């Protein structure tokens, strides 16, 4: 089964993180990504620019409106994702627990809906 591990965290806190610590976090993510590759479970992954770079399109009265900013203000924001292919939820949860993002925020684990 394929699962998306959606990495949520507080962008503001990340902005004020000292450089050395940031390097540490980036290294942890690189190691984690490599571990996923080595285990042959990684399908895709990417980091997202912060919600300050988000633009939202929404239809209002039948008209597509372009709105500056994210679709909703939340305490934690989606910062990136991993798409993995593993046998079951337990395997996906084990990978989610190992994700560096789990230390600073939350990882939402969602199965891919096969159409």
């Amino acid at each position, binding site marked *: 089964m394929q699962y998306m591990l959606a990495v949520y965290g507080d962008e503001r806190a990340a902005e004020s993180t000292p450089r050395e610590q940031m390097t540490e976090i980036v290294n942890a993510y690189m190691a984690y990504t490599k571990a996923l590759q080595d285990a042959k479970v990684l399908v895709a992954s990417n980091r997202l620019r912060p919600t300050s770079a988000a633009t939202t399109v929404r239809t209002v009265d039948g008209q597509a409106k372009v709105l500056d900013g994210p679709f909703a203000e939340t305490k934690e924001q989606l910062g990136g994702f991993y798409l993995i292919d593993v046998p*079951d*939820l*337990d*395997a*996906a949860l084990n990978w989610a627990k190992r994700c560096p993002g789990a230390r600073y925020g939350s990882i939402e684990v969602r*199965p891919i809906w*096969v159409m």
Partner: protein
Amino acid sequence: MTSTTPAHRAAERAARQSYGKLIAYLAARTGDVAAAEDGLADAFAAALASWPTRGLPQAPEAWLLAAARRRIIDMARRRRTREAAADRLLLSVEEAATEMHPADVPDWRLRLMFACAHPAIEVAMRGPLILQTVLGLDAAAIAAAFLTAPKAMGQRLVRAKRRIRDTGIPFRLPDRADLPVRLDAVLEAIYAAFGAGWPDPGGIDARRQGLLDEAVWLGHVVVGLLPDEPEGLGLLALMLYAKARRVARRSASGDYVPLSQQDPALWDAAEIDEAERLLQRASSHGRIGRFQLEAAVQSVHTARRSAGRTDWHAILQLYDGLLQLTHSPVVAVNRAVALSKTAGAVTGLAVLDELAQNPRLAAYQPYWAARAELLARLGRRKSADAAYAQAILLEPDTAVRRFLEQRRARFRPNSI
């Protein structure tokens, strides 16, 4: 569950045994509990139509499994929109058909229980899910026991099963490292089922009465499949100690009889003996846990049948251990009661006073009943009266309410 003769009951037990095993096997192969249930329901219907005329097949379980499997494949074919999922289902079902010896359905009920009590499933639904999938109880019976509306319970069960399927919860035993925590969730769910059957001492509600037996039976399944897990043994012992005192909880006229006043002669000696053996087996593993400690408390209580008195110091020690382990406010209340027996009402009441901050206890009847008793013993009649009033308000059982009202009347301040 409304069977009359022992033979009938035995037949029902056998059917139930098969039911859980077949659901567990089918669900594990497809990941879909609801589909397994639908398929097996059809298979049972087909059996009812064919067995009386054609006679019992040589391997009834395999017959039922084959019929259920055919039905599940049919259903999957009809839902062709989800091609990939259907193919996966077909593959696993057919693979299962080839690898299986006709008369030999492996017992995967424990895997099913682990799926039902998975951390991804809402805690309150784990017990009901196990009752439905492993034992085949219907939503109405489960709702009655858990005091919820049948329709709401039905919907929540459907949602929980869909969640098992859609999230890909596995049907297998957890890894060694996860086993203790995951098994705990299974045991909690079984104990919740037992608890749901407990408040019907008169045995008036057949559905609830049955639930005690079913929970004990689930405990036997766990112990049978994981014989070396002390907490499983502890839970089964705990349930048997409690069940052994079932009848003694009410007098002939239907009055509530508190544990301290129960006649040990009315306790089921065989069940207590079995509980003692199980608890001893559990403790031989040297891994203490919540259920073993709770069972040990019950063991001390039942020792009154030979000792003639209750060793409150031992009980206090056990509650000390339980409190350290669980930090549960309910345990803290029980510990305060034990403490009042060994160190006096003032000391016990002081502990209850400290617990008053806990919002969970405001609606917990035993807290108020314990408080009322201690206040009454100390002659603080007005406060005792208020605490009794609160306990009576919170108690759903009429016999217990009547008992509390009598206690309240005895200590009622003269001014009222």
